[in-house]
């Protein structure tokens, strides 16, 4: 019996290095929550997104006589605080390269001002989205 037990122990003894790899993400300071890629928007329903868009539209203005205004569009990445107030708005990466066009820059800055306007910055986020930072993606068209 001892021989059997001994044989079992020998079989179980490690004879090669482990195959699994260490987790480089393990440990470190926890992040502040939210999703830097703006994917908090996807967690909202269509109705919720519509309500937020309707709210911001109250502050959304355009320069109707600007050349080709009807063709303009800008994507913004907006970061809110835990209470749902927009604290930061910037042109999304996909549109940053267009900022060298003064007409586009003027259009984008109007969109940023619409989000940051004190009358519209308090976004109507659902209860489930409060209590944490949210990163949302907005698309502004005239």
């Amino acid at each position, binding site marked *: 019996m001892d021989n059997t037990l001994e044989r079992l122990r020998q079989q179980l003894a490690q004879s090669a290095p482990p195959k699994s790899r260490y987790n480089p993400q393990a440990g470190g300071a926890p992040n502040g929550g939210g999703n830097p890629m703006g994917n908090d*928007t996807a967690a909202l329903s269509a109705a919720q997104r519509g309500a937020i868009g309707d709210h911001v539209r109250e502050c959304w203005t355009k320069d109707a006589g600007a050349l080709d205004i009807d063709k303009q569009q800008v994507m913004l990445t907006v970061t809110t605080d835990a209470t749902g107030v927009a604290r930061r708005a910037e042109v999304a990466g996909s549109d940053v390269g267009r900022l060298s066009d003064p007409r586009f820059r003027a259009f984008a800055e109007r969109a940023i*001002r619409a989000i940051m306007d004190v009358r519209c910055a308090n976004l109507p986020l659902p209860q489930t989205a409060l209590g944490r930072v949210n990163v949302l*993606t907005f*698309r502004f068209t005239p």
Partner: protein
Amino acid sequence: MIDSTNSLLRRRSILAGAAGLLAAPVPVMSEALAQAAGGQSAVIDVNRARTAPIPIAIPDLGGGQLGSQIAGVISNDLSNSGLFRLIDKAGFIQASASSGDAPNFQNWKPTGAQALVTGNVSGSGGSVRVEFRLWDVLPGTQIQGTAYTTTESNWRRIAHIMADVIYERLLGEKGYFDTRIVYIAATGPRDRRTKRLAIMDQDSANNRVLTDGSWLALTPRFHPTRPIIAFMSYANNRPRVYLFDLSSGRQTQLGDFAGMTFAPRFAPDGNSVIMALSNGGGSDIISVDLGSHASRRLTQSGSIDVSPCYSPDGSQIVFASDRGGDQQIYVMGSGGGGARRISFGSGRYATPVWSPRGDLIAFTRYGGDQSNFSIGVMRPDGSGERILSEGWDVEGPTFAPNGRVLMFYRESRSRDPRGGGFGSQLVSVDITGFNERPVSTPTDASDPAWSPLGA
């Protein structure tokens, strides 16, 4: 056998049912997968923007009276454009902010301002330094900062230049405040009017008369780069196109033609003048080289071809012609030929002018199903016709150099047989049809022409 068949049928049913489950509506599956993948297509749409001016606060610049005066001119320029709404100074929490320090944005946000101008004036007499900064109030950042050194007597022009910088930075298009208007100043009774060439800043300041009124003057136009005006004069009772040198005050006849020449305009490169030349009972469009005075006939239709105007790139010419029976607008290549009609509304069309932006042609329309005259715009292909203003007599549109504003003149009907009540004034309107405003002149005025920026 039957049992096997039934078994086979049941198996097929089961398989069909399973296939149905597998063929569940694709969008549901795709949406779930999309959400699981991060929903990169999910956005919050904000659309249907209102047309509204940008609220801007312009406190007096530091540096005493000159700072106040400069702030006043900037405020008037931006407010009169209709694209900016001045924040009432009575609502300012702080009267002004030195241009050197960042403003306390917590004091400016409650006023509703989205933009803020601060600045300072120092020096006097022959050397004055004017500096300003433009701030984006909501993010709390500076977006423009410029300084100018000039003489104290030039303060108005510096204010207009600063207004242009603010306009361009916030709207993305060139401004039009550092410009001048040349026009015909009219005095005297209606049946014996004296018409003089006159010039002023676009805000009606610095008005002065250029000719003495000995002869009738009409339809002045600015050279694109030089201080020269082309206009029609009835000097010596021979109606011809003349060039007026703003620097010297000299007038010279352009070309030597047997017939009447009129309705001149400079080519975009400034090297020639296009105009109408009477020819028997009609008129043709010709081009005259300013250097050699050589002329080239561009139309010869046997009808009345008048009021030519180049496109901003010089490749096309828009003009009015009655070659089709009544006066309409046509476009042809700059070398002449291939004219195509672009106006098809009710009535007759006249005085076409191409926007410096290239996107619109403005015109005068009259007759047809309307009793009044009207000023309108259309795209260069003739589509999208819009009327901007109407009246008993409105005509002669001219574009601001950024193509955003039109100026024209409006005549009022006489109240009595002696012509009492008759008058003529300049009017400006945004190309969207908003913000129609009278333009102040010391006398009756007509035939305005807008200078290039900085002229």
